[in-house]
């Protein structure tokens, strides 16, 4: 029971970190970046390459993954989304889906469809306390998630850049009148979201070591679900949604059905959205005219 809870929180922490990227980008750029899940996969491969082919220490692998994904996220925004800044939402959505397939196919070309076996960056140890069993990966994942949450909350609430980000998410025109560069703020958001995706990728692959070009898809969709569950655009919502989703998923797997667990997760989402259409912590705001 407690082991499952911790496993659920750990999986949920990964979803939460990914969901932060979705929710921040949505909050600022008002778009769903469906390529976000595939940035996770790129992060996984980067860390894999650094440690397996180059023989670098795990921490260097994480660093490389973060740097590459941050640049990748900013580049994707510049090349694919920025030209569509005033295009209809549907055009942007389709572009994002296209970008997702592009990244998957590029990975297929570079690394083939043969699964790579990722070596956990913190090894495979675990601790046993009575009948509670916790892996090192789970402990590190939860700790990293807590650090990210605290850091991001402080950043958005206490710093000038963070306040400017909140201003842009509310009213781009008024923010621009203050002298805030909307383009730079959007780039920064993509940079943060993609850097976090790299970390999520490394943690994910440490827990589930099979790495293929579609590795990011399912966690990406689950994390997007988590972001909606918590209230898209809300940072605490993404954290809460992610962790709840992870816990629900692990508990359904353990106590109800291995096969139906995803269906149960989505059923819970639908029920929550029926009761609270804006998500758990989402603000009920009417669209501005």
């Amino acid at each position, binding site marked *: 029971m407690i082991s499952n809870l911790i496993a659920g929180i750990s999986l949920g922490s990964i979803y939460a970190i990914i969901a932060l990227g979705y929710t921040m980008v949505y909050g600022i750029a008002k778009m769903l970046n469906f390529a976000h899940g595939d940035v996770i996969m790129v992060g996984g491969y980067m860390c894999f390459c650094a440690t397996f082919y180059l023989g670098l220490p795990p921490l260097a692998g994480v660093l490389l993954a973060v740097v590459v994904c941050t640049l990748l996220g900013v580049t994707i925004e510049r090349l694919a989304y920025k030209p569509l800044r005033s295009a209809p939402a549907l055009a942007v959505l389709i572009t994002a889906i296209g970008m997702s397939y592009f990244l998957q196919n590029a990975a297929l070309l570079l690394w083939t469809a043969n699964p790579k076996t990722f070596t956990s960056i913190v090894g495979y140890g675990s601790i046993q306390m009575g009948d509670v069993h916790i892996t090192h990966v789970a402990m590190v994942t939860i700790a990293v998630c807590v650090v990210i949450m605290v850091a991001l909350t402080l950043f958005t609430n206490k710093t000038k850049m963070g306040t400017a980000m909140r201003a842009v998410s509310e009213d781009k025109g008024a923010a*621009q009148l*203050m002298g805030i*560069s909307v383009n730079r703020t959007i780039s920064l958001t993509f940079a943060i979201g993609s850097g976090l995706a790299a970390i999520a990728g490394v943690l994910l692959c440490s827990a589930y070591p099979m790495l293929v070009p579609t590795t990011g898809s399912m966690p990406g969709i689950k994390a997007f679900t988590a972001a909606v569950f918590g209230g898209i655009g809300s940072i605490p919502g993404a954290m809460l949604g992610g962790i709840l989703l992870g816990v629900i998923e692990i508990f359904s797997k353990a106590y109800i059905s291995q096969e139906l667990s995803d269906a149960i997760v989505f059923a819970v989402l639908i029920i929550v959205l029926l009761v609270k259409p804006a998500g758990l912590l989402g603000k009920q705001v009417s669209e501005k005219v």
Partner: protein
Amino acid sequence: MAMLEVKDLHVYYGLIHALHGISFEVNEGEVVALIGANGAGKTTTLHTITGLLQAKGGTVVFDGQDITRKPGHAIVRLGISHVPEGRRVFSNLTVAENLQMGAYTRPKGEVAGSLEEVYEWFPRLRERKNQAAGTLSGGEQQMLAMGRAMMSRPRILLMDEPSMGLSPLFVGEIFKIIEKVSAAGTTVLLVEQNAKKALSIADRAYVLETGTIGKSGKASELLNDDAIKKAYLGE
């Protein structure tokens, strides 16, 4: 040379031709009113000056520098501050955070002093500094929008219908503050539908009629102009 010169400005919304080549100027130290009916193009004019809209033709010159194609976020650094129509305060940010955003372009060390100044101008804002801006009344939000614009220490303040939707008490207060801002040395370009009020504090005025400048002149003369009285002063 005028501080702000708008020359032959053409602005479109898609195919809609909103400004048909308007020209006007504002000299240092003046209060200039831009009046006109709803839909005449007053907001469009201000948006084009501060880069929220791009002109198709014509120029905006500030202090001898052509700023027509300057990116919007760079304009406030030149000393032009814009209080937009409908106030547009950041409702999820606190009053203090809104004011800090107003000083976004200024060095960190100078912000506290300006904040103190704005709180002296608007004591109500100090009382509510930790409150979310969205919880303020309309008049308080207008004060916040003005205070926020003053935080950049502008040389010219553009104001778009500051009296819109306010009770007469607040309107009087806002206009008093505009006069104080002007007396303190800030140039003012005031857009108003409340023409009587605007003309009573302005030095000069321009009348905008569906995208073109109609009459212009001394505010005191326009106040006594029969056609203006009929069309805009409800007399």
